[in-house]
């Protein structure tokens, strides 16, 4: 890459300048045309953060409406658009791009590669994303509003009974899917071909392992999602009857297809988180990760099992009892490899030498709160009780524990962990403490009482509710506003870090940090590992 630049523009770069390969293009074109994995990683991360704030603003609308019973702020139709687009943005716009951003930044540095294997495709896979979300968001301003059928877009609510904006929804999901698949291909090709000499499979950092497995999941299921939205499109606009019983179709088949994508998707959003936590916990325990091999096998087991549990989202659709049993037992099995992971983290901490810098604080919060979400997941697996939990706030509590205090907290842990490496400066530790404690208290105020209202019988996706749910909903909304505001502290901290304010850090940054990314200078130069390192 840099060699080509040198030949084509000999005047632009001083030949004797030893750091010439670190010349960084300026202006907007740097970002538009970049093929640099660090630039693209930064773009992904900023995009994800902006989407997190946009999706969060929609959650604020939802919580404002649910602050008290009755209709105050929005109409039910708009409320449904908010729940739908909030879900789509958080899943496809915030969590997944954030993980892809981290993969871009870190995988080449962790395996000793100069860049991602397919840098131009890397550029493309990012730059189609803003378009996809512009399409999705613009549909909110259409006559009749945006998609209002939930992020799960069950037919026939999303076909015969949906608004005209469904076409835009389908198109934007297609683009998101293409972006994810390209990102996944890039990760796989990079890891297979560009590991430094000596970086054998079982020496790879766990973040690389979990992302490799995630990438295979993405390639397996994103086409299924594309198929589902395409069938929705043709059912709505071109007279097919995939999901319409009157034409020989079956609305429940939609759910089978959707959840065959949807359940592996859940692990797409959590396996990289497992990888992050497995990097952070050993560093701040100053002790090697316990059970490295079993971590790798557990990740693989979770990924394989994720393909045979999808119908646990559908226990109330009326399945034969033997199918309900199969999906109940298969789902329960997932808790075994997941448990192994949690036990390994705890065993890593055991008899370590622990310190509690911000990445570790978020990692510990992750372990506790994700485990709570995992345990409520185990309860949800039990079919006869799931009949009571299904489609109530108990489910909302469950998946927000695994996605917000799970996936999102792991992303924040990752940002705190690697930000000094990216900028060369320590972040503002006072702001970080404020961010952590405000987030921790408010997120539990936000999501924990949802267990109670769910058990007491409040269905999800309703704009108004019976009076016995009023007290808890008020507290949930207060927690929601507080959690939303807390993220502005994080925004301030990240902006400060990007302006390169703060104390300079060493290349290792953290006392216990080990791995190739900690051997290059801080901030990480624009190009790294042009000559591959040798891993002993």
């Amino acid at each position, binding site marked *: 890459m840099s060699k080509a630049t040198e030949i084509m523009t000999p005047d632009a770069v001083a030949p004797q300048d030893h750091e010439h390969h670190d010349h960084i293009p300026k202006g907007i074109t740097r970002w538009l045309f970049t093929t640099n994995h660090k630039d693209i990683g930064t773009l992904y991360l900023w995009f994800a953060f902006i989407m997190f704030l946009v999706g969060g603003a929609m959650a604020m609308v939802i919580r404002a409406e649910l602050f008290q019973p009755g209709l105050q702020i929005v109409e039910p*139709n708009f409320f449904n658009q908010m729940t739908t687009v909030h879900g789509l943005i958080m899943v496809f716009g915030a969590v997944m791009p954030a993980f892809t951003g981290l993969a871009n930044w870190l995988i080449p540095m962790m395996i000793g590669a100069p860049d991602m294997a397919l840098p131009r495709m890397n550029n493309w896979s990012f730059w189609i994303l803003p378009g996809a979300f512009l399409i999705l968001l613009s549909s909110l301003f259409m006559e009749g509003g945006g998609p209002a059928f939930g992020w799960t877009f*069950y037919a026939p609510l999303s076909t015969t009974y949906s608004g005209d904006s469904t076409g835009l929804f389908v198109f934007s999901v297609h683009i998101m899917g293409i972006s994810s698949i390209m990102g996944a291909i890039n990760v796989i090709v990079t890891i297979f071909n560009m590991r430094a000499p000596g970086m054998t499979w079982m020496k790879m950092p766990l973040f690389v392992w979990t992302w490799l497995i995630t990438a295979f999941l993405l390639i397996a299921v994103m086409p299924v999602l594309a198929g589902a939205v395409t069938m929705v499109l043709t059912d709505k606009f071109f007279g097919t009857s995939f999901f319409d019983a009157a034409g020989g179709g079956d609305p429940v088949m939609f759910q089978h297809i959707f959840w065959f994508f949807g359940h592996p998707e859940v692990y797409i959003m959590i396996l990289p988180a497992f990888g992050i936590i497995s990097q952070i916990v050993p560093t701040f325990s100053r002790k090697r990760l316990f059970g490295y091999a079993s971590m790798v096998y557990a990740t693989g087991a979770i990924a394989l099992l994720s393909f045979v549990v999808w119908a646990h989202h559908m226990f109330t659709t009326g399945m034969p009892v033997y199918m309900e049993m199969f999906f109940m037992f298969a789902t329960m099995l997932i808790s075994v490899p997941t448990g192994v992971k949690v036990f390994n983290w705890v065993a890593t901490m055991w008899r370590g030498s*622990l310190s509690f810098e911000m990445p570790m604080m978020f990692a510990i919060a992750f372990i*506790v709160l994700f485990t709570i979400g995992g345990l409520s997941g185990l309860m949800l697996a039990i079919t006869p*009780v799931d009949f009571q939990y299904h489609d109530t706030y108990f489910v909302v509590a469950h998946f927000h524990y695994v996605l917000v205090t799970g996936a999102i907290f792991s992303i924040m842990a990752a940002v705190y962990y690697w930000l000094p490496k990216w900028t060369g400066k320590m972040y503002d530790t006072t702001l970080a403490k404020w961010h952590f404690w405000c987030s921790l208290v408010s997120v*539990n105020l936000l999501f924990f009482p949802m267990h109670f209202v769910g058990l007491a019988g409040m269905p*999800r996706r309703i704009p108004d*509710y019976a009076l*016995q749910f009023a007290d808890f909903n008020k507290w949930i909304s207060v927690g929601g506003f507080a959690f939303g505001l807390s993220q502005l502290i994080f925004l301030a901290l990240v902006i400060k870090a990007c302006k390169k304010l703060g104390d300079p850090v060493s290349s290792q940054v953290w006392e216990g940090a080990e791995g190739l990314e900690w051997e290059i200078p801080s901030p990480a130069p624009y190009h790294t590992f042009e000559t591959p390192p040798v891993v002993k």
Partner: protein
Amino acid sequence: MKRLTTQVAKWAWHLPFMLFSSLLFADTTAGEASSLNLRQGATDISGQVYDLHMLMFFICVAIAVLVFGVMFTSMYLHRKSRGAKPANFHENVKVEIAWTIVPFLILIFMAVPAARTLIAMEDTSEADLTVVVTGSQWKWHYKYMDRDVEYYSLLATQREQIENIFDKGDNYLLEVDRPLVIPTGKKVRFLITSDDVIHSWWVPDFAVKKDANPGFINESWTKVNEPGIYRGQCAELCGKDHGYMPVVVIAKEPAEFDAWMNAQEAIAKEAREEEQRLLSMNMSMDELMREGERVYNATCAACHMPNGEGLPGVFPALKGSQMALEDMPGHIDIVLHGKAGTAMQAFGKMLSLKDIAAVITYERNAWGNNTGDMVQAKDVYAVANGN
């Protein structure tokens, strides 16, 4: 400072568990509608489900206490600030096998009672009474098999309560005009389906939640022990008014139930005779408009809106529409039979001929649609019977 932070950290992490443990106290009031926990409900099955739920809950709490206990102990004992030196171990085959096998055994312990309850819940055989439950946007329809009784059940909460103009009643959003009535002590089978999108029929006190899928029929059952009023809601997102689609079931002693059923059959018979009489009568414009406005607000306004303007792009306007101004047979036809492939339902079986005549007259004369057209029951009857 660091010490204080650690203390606060511990307190904050324990907070969820203090909240969780308050669940246990809520247990004492279970059976009543607890605001914290699942209900024991009114049937043997719902009691079993509740027990299963509590078993799972306690196992999960025990696992959490154990795992987090070890972790917090380690966070206290093995702090660097306390001078802890890291140990060197990073694997232990025996331990790793143990914590793979033990959870597996716990799972088997959970799976056995769960499977037993599940099999009992799915056994819909040998029912004493069968009710067909049909969901549609946004109401339930109940039809008693082998009896001549069927009716719609609509939300009875006033619009003004939802819009915060009136105070909200005790059963806000959980009240209907005509509840489903079933006998106690009898096995009642529900055949559940839908006319449009997917709904889900849920009564928490029976532990019955089953999706209503258009074009397919699901089965479920209950056997209620105690007479009473049991309230639930639609549990599957079904469009705009998903939150306004409650389920109310009244369980009566069998003798009372039989009396109620006979009375309903008599009322249904009378209504049919009344309908025949009306065919030869004409109603005045005032009467039609008054009745029509009532029917419109109860049945049509949810989509076409009280001002007749609909929701642009979702539900069409009636105000100034070609159909409401000109095409009268088409107008009667669409109200009677609905329009395939859209949200417009067939109201022929929901409304009486008189109601349909009144509401069409209203739609053709309200909001500036001043056609002067009057529609009588016999006009509707003519379209309904194809002449």
